């Protein structure tokens, strides 16, 4: 089912005329004639969940914004940096006005009068397209003071980032938007209470906001009928890696994952098979390419139940010609580079995971290192201000869990290839930290001191 991708290739769609011809900004008129609470209720009824990664119900998030006349803000998160994800890039480039309409309606529903689109710095062309579209919309009176003669005033600024994955995290994004280093903040207070410039702030992903006019057109209840009960609507899925036809495909949530990977994206190259796949960007735990996982319905809850997550909807396929050790090292290096350094478990955990994986790759590691690595991942999860550390810990932990034999076989093969001699016997490195062997405990009586 195509909603966001309908006619997306028409070059006219990026212009105000082409967009208006297809019924563009009609929903804005409709929203302005409604009470903001009714617009909010439509969103609640649709059950649409955030498309950025966390999958939090969008209507609920909107309803957390306090009522009142204080300065409120709406921020569109277009800092799409999750490895494997490229849906927002295509949507912004080809249909910028749908995003603008979604933002203006969303701002009306929560009573915000200042909004920002934080687009990643690398998307220069897309930022230009967006800036041009905002100018067009402003000239036509859809953005600015007293939109279309109503009481609603909304200012929209396109803010370019400068290359930092962490700025996709909502509180880090706010810090970056305030002109600081992009460090995440302690929560609570949540941005809905105290966000940008200390005002209540709603932050939503590009695809989520683009669904706002769609929901208003269909009606929330009607929209909720698409997809499954808890994962409503359509989702743009970015498929990449070892597939024959990589790209963005819009699917109805709940279709079998096999259909996306094999039918839409063409499956792995001839003669190869799927070894593993990331179901939702590099932060999602990997799943093996077994039938039981490929048959999973592609929706939020089914993937969560299988021990992974839908995340940003980016499927990265790894075929059997790829070493899982290489993938693990690439993943860990990415998070080491992007860790902002504020919280110790993430800053140190990502760094040491890379070092341990490098030892695995050169054959210097022992199978015991895999246990230590797995325990490091466990100690990162839940111990930081944001989930960047968890985002490394989950895929690395899952790779060790599902592909332990391959890691062990790789260590043995690399040891042999690098001429490192006989295997180092297993020692408990957690107890033996120094360069000297521990004293033999045989002639020590541990109960002696007690008596």
């Amino acid at each position, binding site marked *: 089912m195509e909603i966001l*991708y309908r006619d997306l*290739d028409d070059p006219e769609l990026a212009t105000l005329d082409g967009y208006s011809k297809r019924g563009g900004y009609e929903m804005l008129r409709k929203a302005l004639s409604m009470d903001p609470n009714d617009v909010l209720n439509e969103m609640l009824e649709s059950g649409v969940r955030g498309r950025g990664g966390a999958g939090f119900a969008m209507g609920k998030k909107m309803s957390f914004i306090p009522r009142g006349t204080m*300065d409120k803000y709406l921020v569109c998160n277009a800092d*799409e*940096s*999750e*490895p*494997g*994800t*490229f849906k*927002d*890039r*295509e949507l912004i*480039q*080809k249909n910028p006005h749908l995003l603008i309409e979604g933002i203006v309606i969303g701002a009306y529903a929560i009573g915000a009068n*200042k909004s920002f689109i934080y687009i*990643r*710095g*690398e998307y220069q*062309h897309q930022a230009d397209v967006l800036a041009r579209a905002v100018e067009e919309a402003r000239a036509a009176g859809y953005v600015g003071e007293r939109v279309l003669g109503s009481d609603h005033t909304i200012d929209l600024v396109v*803010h*370019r*980032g*400068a*290359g*930092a*994955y962490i700025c996709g995290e909502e509180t880090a994004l706010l810090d*970056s*938007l*305030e*002109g*600081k*280093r*992009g460090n995440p903040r302690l929560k609570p207070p949540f941005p809905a209470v105290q966000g940008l410039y200390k005002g209540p702030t709603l932050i939503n992903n590009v695809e989520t906001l683009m669904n706002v006019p769609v929901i208003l057109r269909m009606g929330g209840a009607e929209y909720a009928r698409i997809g499954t009960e808890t994962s409503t609507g359509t989702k743009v899925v*970015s498929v*990449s*890696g*070892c597939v024959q*036809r*990589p*790209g*963005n*495909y819009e699917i109805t949530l709940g279709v079998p994952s096999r259909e996306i990977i094999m039918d*839409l994206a*063409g499956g792995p190259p001839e003669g190869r098979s799927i070894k593993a796949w*990331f179901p939702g960007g*590099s932060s999602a735990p990997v799943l093996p390419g077994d039938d039981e996982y490929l048959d999973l319905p592609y929706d939020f809850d089914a993937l969560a139940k299988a021990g992974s997550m839908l995340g940003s909807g*980016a499927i*990265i396929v*790894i075929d059997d010609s*790829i070493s899982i050790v290489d*993938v693990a090292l*690439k*993943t860990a290096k*990415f998070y080491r*580079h*992007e860790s*902002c350094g504020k919280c110790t478990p993430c800053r140190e955990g990502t760094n040491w995971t890379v070092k341990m994986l490098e030892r695995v790759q050169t054959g*210097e590691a022992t199978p015991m290192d895999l246990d230590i690595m797995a325990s490091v991942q466990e100690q990162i999860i839940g111990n930081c201000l944001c989930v960047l550390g968890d985002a490394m810990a989950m895929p690395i932990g899952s790779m060790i869990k599902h592909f332990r034999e391959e890691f062990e076989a790789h260590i043995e093969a690399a040891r042999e290839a690098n001429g490192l001699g006989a295997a180092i016997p297993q020692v408990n490195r957690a107890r033996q930290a120094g*360069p000297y062997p521990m004293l033999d405990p045989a002639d020590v009586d541990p109960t002696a001191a007690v008596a």
Partner: protein
Amino acid sequence: MAIDPTQVPRFAHGSRVPGWDDAADLTKDPAVVPDPATTPVPQHVRVAIEAEMAQYPDVRSAAIPALHIVQDEHGWCSPTAIEQAACVLRLTPAYLTAVATFYDMFSTTPKGRHDVYVCTNISCSLLGADAIYQEMLSAAGDDPEFHVQSFECLGACDIAPMASVNGEYVGPLEAEDCGRIVDDVKAGREVLPDKQLRKRKVAVEHWKGA
């Protein structure tokens, strides 16, 4: 396997990390907000930064846009560039330096004018991006005009392996494309017109008949 400290690769200043412990000159006072009377700022730079400042409730929000502007002007975030931005924004150079060092797109060391970012993240490296990066490095050679950098996911895994050449996304790249990129940039032409992302159709259309 004990670590031999003499074998650990170190930078010239003795550290294993580039620059984090660059000695601060403690005999100098900390730099203050530059005086407009003694800090010449080109008129077009000042106008551009002031236009950005007017967009935000707080001028500090214009820090990143201002750094983009001065980096475009000077080629890198040089002390002069940062001083000019600080002068217009009425912030200290230290504040802006702290911001500039956080983000990958700002360089506080001299670099070539033409940015070539080669994506070497998961999806691209599954399809041979590391070899493309090496090829790109040797294609650019020691030309000081080029700044070739391996980059984290640029958000274009559909055209993996890919690169961003002065902001233009091109891919999927093959080894021989690296030489063409260098030639196209040097000649001031459009980069790889047949491989530009902006001309690519949506996946369903692109692969039709393939």
